[in-house]
């Protein structure tokens, strides 16, 4: 199973250097997806300063990994909790964050075809 994980941080109108933000978030995600949870591939890494309207720093990190909500729900819960703690510790309570997990390739359906059971009266 391959799942796409999207981590988004919106740290508000603080003028932190985006390079540092990116490095921190990147390191967090890399450390989170370690063996034995399978291969992990970074497919998008984007940090930008939205100076046009709200003056916010945003950061998004997308990975695809061989682990997901139907493979290991406890891992998903653990990552989300650690991600929120990481964001709060790194950027303060004003920062907002979001984690989404999307299953990209569900394994094929398994069919069970049992014989009936009976009671003989």
């Amino acid at each position, binding site marked *: 199973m391959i799942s796409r994980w999207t981590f988004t941080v919106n740290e508000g109108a603080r003028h932190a250097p985006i390079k540092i933000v990116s490095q921190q978030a990147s390191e967090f995600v890399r450390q989170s997806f370690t063996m034995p949870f399978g291969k992990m591939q970074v497919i998008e890494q984007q940090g930008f300063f939205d100076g046009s309207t709200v003056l916010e720093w945003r950061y998004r990190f997308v990975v695809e990994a061989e682990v997901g909500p139907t493979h290991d729900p406890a891992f998903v819960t653990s990552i989300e909790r650690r991600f929120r703690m990481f964001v709060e510790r790194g950027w303060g309570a004003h920062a907002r964050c979001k984690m989404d997990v999307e*299953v990209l390739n569900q394994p094929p359906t398994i069919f069970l075809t*049992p014989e009936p059971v*009976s*009671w003989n009266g």
Partner: protein
Amino acid sequence: MTNEGVDHLLGTATAINWASDTINARLVASSATVNKDDTVMTPHTKIGTDQTLANKTKTKDTTNDRIVYTNTVDITWTAVAAGSTIGTVTIFKQVTNDADSIPICSIDVTDTPTNGSDIKLTPHADGLFYLQQ
């Protein structure tokens, strides 16, 4: 089939009404120890989410002298988390919790490791279970 389940089906104990009661199917771990003397669902270690049978039928088969209980469509468990092994499927009357729900029968299936996929049980042409003279 469990003695308790048959007792209720026959109405000797509080009758099970196959048509109107909530009848569920549960994927049970191969490691669970279940037997025909179980009176509640506690020993039937659950995998995934119990599924309520929405297309139940009970038919009188005069050719084979049976009362056949089944569900007319496949029973599907969606995206069952990986890491468990299914050993049996239990059909039971749901009451409020495992401690008071009544196992009717335990259907043996080939030990099946879960991998995150959907699991689909196709009821046999002769039913999920039957009572036979």
